C-alpha cells in the first residue's frame, strides 16, 4: 500500500467525519486511523477546530488562482526544456525511492523499516511542544504551533512563530524591574526561544527555563532545570549566568550544553566554543574554567567537579534533530530516549542496565530501529507493551 494513497484515503475519511457523513464502516476506519497515533489525534483536533477551520477557509479563498494560472500557462509555453529534464530526473528519483531511504543518512541504527508499512507503534517521537508561564502566572499552551504575538504587562512583545519564542524582535520595555517568564517543556516536547539579548536557547524535554523578558543590571541571569543548549550573544560587560540547583555557569559569549535533570546525580556542562566558568554554590569559592570540547561533571552530592575531554558536538545533537550515544549504558540511553519518546521502561534483570551501546537515531523518526538493534545483539529481549518497554534476558 502506497503511503500517499493511504494519506489521500485518510483525508477523505477525515473530511467526511468533519462533515458528519461517515457510515458505520467508515467510522470504524476513521477510529482506527485516529487511535493509531497521538499525532493523528492532535492533527484531527487542529483540523476540526472551528476557528482554525474558518481561517483556513479564508486563506483558501484569498489565494490568487487566476493570476497563478496565467503564470503557469506562460511557463508551460516558454522554452527551456533542457533545464527541466535534469530536474525531473531528480524528482523522479525522489518519488520512486523516497520512503525506504527516508531522511536517515545516519549509519549506526539505520532505519530498516520502509515507511509505507503501516505500523501502529504505540511509542511516538516527541514534537515541538511547551507552555509559557507569564509573570502573572498565566499559562499559554504553545503546542498548536500557531503564530501569535503576546504582550507582557510591561508592554514587552513576545512573538511565537515557527515553534520559537522571540523576545528580541521588538523594542522591549525599559523598566528597571524585569518581569520573569518561564518556559516549561513537558515529556515528549522540545522548544526554542530567543532571549531579549539575542541569545538562542533550545530547551529539551522535561525541562524548565526561567528568564526575564528583558535583561537589567550587570548580569544576564536565567535558571534552568533539565537540559538546554545555549548560544549566548557576546556582551563582555554583561556576563550571562545560568543558575542551576547547586551551581552557576558564567559565560561571556559562547555556545554550550547544560544537562541538569533532577533525577540524575550529575550536572553536565559541555562547551562547544568560547569559555565558561563553573562555580558550585557553597563555602568554597573555587571555580573551574572550561575549554572547548571539555565537559564539567558536577556531582550534586559531593559538590565536586570533574573536567573531562569530550567531543562536544555529540552532546548537542539532540538540538539538531538526532540522539547520539557514545559508549553509554542501556539505562542511560533509555533515560534520555524516554523523555523524548514519552515511554516508561524497566529491566527484569538489573545486570542488563549496564550493557553499553554506541549509535544514534534521528529523533523525529520511529524508535523501532534502535529497539530492533538492541534485540538483535541477542543479549537482550525487548518487549513493547503500550507505552512501556521491558528488557529481559
Amino acid at each position, binding site marked *: 500500500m502506497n503511503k500517499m494513497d493511504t494519506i489521500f484515503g485518510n483525508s477523505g475519511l477525515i473530511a467526511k467525519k468533519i462533515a458528519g457523513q461517515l457510515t458505520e464502516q467508515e467510522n470504524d476506519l476513521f477510529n482506527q486511523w485516529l487511535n493509531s497515533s497521538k499525532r493523528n489525534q492532535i492533527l484531527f483536533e487542529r483540523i476540526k477546530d472551528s476557528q482554525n477551520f474558518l481561517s483556513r477557509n479564508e486563506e483558501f479563498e484569498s489565494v490568487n488562482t487566476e493570476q497563478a*494560472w496565467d503564470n503557469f500557462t506562460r511557463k508551460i509555453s516558454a522554452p527551456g526544456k533542457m533545464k527541466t529534464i535534469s530536474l525531473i530526473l531528480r524528482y523522479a528519483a525522489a518519488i520512486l525511492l523516497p520512503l525506504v531511504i*527516508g531522511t536517515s543518512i545516519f549509519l549506526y541504527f539505520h532505519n530498516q523499516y520502509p515507511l509505507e508499512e503501516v505500523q501502529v507503534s504505540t511509542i511516538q517521537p516527541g514534537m515541538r511542544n511547551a507552555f509559557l508561564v507569564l509573570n502573572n502566572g498565566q499559562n499559554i499552551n504553545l503546542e498548536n504551533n500557531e503564530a501569535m504575538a503576546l504582550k507582557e504587562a510591561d508592554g514587552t512583545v513576545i512573538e511565537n512563530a515557527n515553534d520559537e519564542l522571540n523576545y528580541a524582535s521588538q523594542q522591549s520595555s525599559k523598566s528597571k524591574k524585569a518581569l520573569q517568564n518561564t518556559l516549561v517543556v513537558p515529556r515528549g516536547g522540545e522548544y526554542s526561544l530567543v532571549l531579549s539579548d539575542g541569545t538562542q536557547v533550545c530547551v529539551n524535554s522535561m525541562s524548565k527555563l526561567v528568564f526575564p523578558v528583558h535583561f537589567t543590571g550587570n548580569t544576564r541571569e536565567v535558571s534552568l532545570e533539565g537540559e538546554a543548549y545555549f548560544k549566548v550573544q557576546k556582551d563582555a560587560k554583561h556576563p550571562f549566568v545560568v543558575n542551576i540547583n547547586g551551581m552557576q555557569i558564567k559565560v561571556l559569549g559562547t555556545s554550550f550544553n547544560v544537562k541538569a535533570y533532577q533525577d540524575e546525580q550529575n550536572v553536565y556542562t559541555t562547551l562547544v566554543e568560547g569559555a565558561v566558568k563553573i562555580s558550585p554554590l557553597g563555602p568554597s569559592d573555587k571555580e573551574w574554567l572550561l575549554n572547548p570540547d571539555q565537559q564539567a561533571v558536577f556531582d550534586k552530592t559531593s559538590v565536586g567537579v570533574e573536567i573531562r575531554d569530550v567531543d562536544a558536538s555529540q552532546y548537542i545533537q539532540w538540538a539538531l534533530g538526532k540522539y547520539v550515544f557514545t559508549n553509554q549504558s542501556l539505562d542511560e540511553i533509555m533515560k534520555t530516549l524516554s523523555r523524548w519518546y514519552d515511554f516508561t521502561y524497566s529491566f527484569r534483570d538489573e545486570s542488563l542496565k549496564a550493557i553499553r551501546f554506541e549509535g544514534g537515531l534521528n529523533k523525529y523518526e520511529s524508535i523501532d530501529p534502535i529497539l530492533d538493534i538492541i534485540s538483535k545483539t541477542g543479549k537482550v529481549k525487548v518487549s513493547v507493551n503500550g507505552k512501556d518497554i521491558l528488557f529481559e534476558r
Partner: protein
Amino acid sequence: MVPDQTLIERIRKGDSIALKQFFESFYPSVYIFARKYLKDTDIAEDIAQDAFVEFWNRKEQFDDMNAVKGFIYTVTKNKCLNHIKTTNIRQKILRNKLMSDEYFYELVQEEETYRIVHSAVNGLAAKSRNIVLLSMEGYKNKEIAKELDVSVNTVKTLKKNAYKELKEKLKDYVFILFLLNQMLG
C-alpha cells in the same frame, strides 16, 4: 464534480479545460502547502506553479490522480527544501523539522482534508452552505434559525437537504475508501 479518473485522462490528452479545472481546484492547496515551508509568498507561488509545470511536462506517465497529487506535493516540498538550503535558516531544529518525512505527510494530510471539505461545501447552494458551515462550527439548530432569521423547522429541512447534497459530493471519497479497505483487508 468530474471524477478524478476522467479528469486525468483528459489532461493526458492535452485537454486544456480539464487542465484548468484541475489547476483551479488543486493549486490553492499546493500554494498553502508551500507556505508551510517558506515564508516568502512570491517564492512559494513560483514554486507551486513550477510543480504544476513539472507535472505537465511528464503528464503521459500518470494514470492515477493520487499519483499526480503525490508528485506535485513531493516536487513542491523538494523545491522548497532546496530553496531553504540556499538561504540561511538560523534554527537547525526548524530545518530538521521541515526536512522530516513526518512533517511532509502531516501537511499533505491536512491540506488534502481541507481541500476536500472546502470544495464539497463550496459546491453547495448558498443557503445550504451557510447552514453546513454554521453547524460545523457547532451551532445548534435553534441558534442557526436565529442567525438566519428562519424557523427551526426550516433549518431542519435545509440541513437535511444540505447534508444529502454533501453526501452526494463526498461520494467519490467513499469509493476510494472502500477500495482502500479492500486493499488493506
